[in-house]
């Protein structure tokens, strides 16, 4: 494992998108996800695609890198497209392959769904590409804060998220260590039938779990020794402050939203 291991897929940078408050980004993406289901003609999709592409270019991350991140999802996009071609029977018959007849409605529907999918995934991956996991956590905590009134454990949730983030690399190092130790004792992780390979994972998982529990216990003790006593009366070091750039982006997004509703039919 390299030393520069970064949790998630965050790409450091200093673009406008990087500098935005995580809450701004989360809010915009939240609305984008809802709005996209209101698009109903080519022009309205065009507006949304324009917005998504514009965001993508402002991040200044290499396009090829972003597309590489979308790779695992292409399969689902194409699969749903083909499924639509086969199942939907609207409009007129365009052409037929063997005994399957492809309808025009199916083609439109398939294209529409695929476009929706692509835009959704593009936008959400822009969030993880430009925001560190810890500031996403901060953003989520701050946005969920009103829920404290109904005794929703916001602070605990955020702490859980940040501790998991902190221990991902530690546990990965540990996994590597254990798998080497087991390999040196003759456990074969790479060859053999599926069933055998699954069985080989057991001597990896058991020590990993045991040590994770031990760590959890010690960590809890260390936290207590440092005066951790739940969320009550705690101050926060990480501070989120909305900047002028956030206001600007909000207004810009609102304008796009207005344009969008005019383009709908």
């Amino acid at each position: 494992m390299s030393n520069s291991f970064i949790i998630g897929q965050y790409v450091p940078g200093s673009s406008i998108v990087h500098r935005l408050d995580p809450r701004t980004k989360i809010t915009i993406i939240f609305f984008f996800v809802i709005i996209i289901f209101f698009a109903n003609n080519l022009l309205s999709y065009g507006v949304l695609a324009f917005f998504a592409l514009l965001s993508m270019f402002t991040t200044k991350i290499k396009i090829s890198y972003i597309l590489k991140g979308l790779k695992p999802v292409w399969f689902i996009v194409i699969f749903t497209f083909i499924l639509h071609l086969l199942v939907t029977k609207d409009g007129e018959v365009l052409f037929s392959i063997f005994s399957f007849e492809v309808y025009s409605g199916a083609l439109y529907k398939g294209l529409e769904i695929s476009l929706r999918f692509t835009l959704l995934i593009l936008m959400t991956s822009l969030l993880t590409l430009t925001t560190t996991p810890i500031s996403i956590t901060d953003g989520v905590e701050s946005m969920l804060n009103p829920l404290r009134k109904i005794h929703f454990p916001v602070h605990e949730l955020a702490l859980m998220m940040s501790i998991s983030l902190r221990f991902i690399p530690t546990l990965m190092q540990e996994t590597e260590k254990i798998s080497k130790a087991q390999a040196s004792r003759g456990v074969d992780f790479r060859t053999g039938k599926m069933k055998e390979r699954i069985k080989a994972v057991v001597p990896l998982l058991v020590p990993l779990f045991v040590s994770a529990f031990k760590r959890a216990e010690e960590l809890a003790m260390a936290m207590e020794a440092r005066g951790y006593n739940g969320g009550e009366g705690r101050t926060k070091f990480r501070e989120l402050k909305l900047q002028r750039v956030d206001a600007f982006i909000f207004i810009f997004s609102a304008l796009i939203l207005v344009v969008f509703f005019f383009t709908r039919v």
Partner: protein
Amino acid sequence: MSSFIEFKHIHFKYQQGEDWALKDVSFHIEDNEWVAIIGHNGSGKSTIAKLMNGLLFPQEGEIRVQDLVVNEETIWDVRKKVGMVFQNPDNQFVGTTVVDDVAFGLENHGIPREEMITRIDNSLRAVNMEDYYNHEPHRLSGGQKQRVAIASVLAVAPELVIFDEATAMLDPKGRATIMETVQQVRETKNVSIVTITHDLNEVTFADRVIVMNEGKVWFEGTPREVFKQHEELQKIGLDTPFVTQVSRVLESKGINLVKEPINHKELMDELWTLYSIK
């Protein structure tokens, strides 16, 4: 003047039906004193550390920190005064980065943000980790992580810092830097220090040493007095440092050093002045 911490006839066991882990332990630690507690595994030394800041409570006896009796109600005040550095560097690192980790303790105690920033700065500088502000724990060595742990404890401005085998999992180099840091802390800050260890080499800097054996205080004295107990120490499973072994061998050959040496320099001084003193 009263002591900073006082243990009065402490009895402690982890579970009903087990043997006592601590049997009638009494001692005290003064302000600004450095006390080393040594003993082999299972001698009860780590239990003492956990009793000091209310992670455990004794079945019998009373522990006082200044004017507070340690119990369920006072632990949060006690933990402000008594900070603790643990053995495993990884399992006490709470924050995702160095600065977050130091901030954690301050957040717990409700310190305002502006003050946090200066305190974090100062405490990281005190352990020479100011260049690692935004480093994640997996990019730090064990010794560096322990230094961050020390900074995290110092940031809360405790009056006593306990090092519970804080060097046990480090390589010799990391161990040396931590011992240096501890001495530096002692010189620059107004704190008492308790180091808990089974390594006799680490007790030489302490003002006073408490040797634990089978849950009891076995010996109490200055490092020099402790090292004189060479054979008894070996009997209870503690390895004496090299200089002590040298002086014992010399003694058996009929060469008596004037002063019991506790480090290499003292041994050398004793040796080269031996003839002229005679």
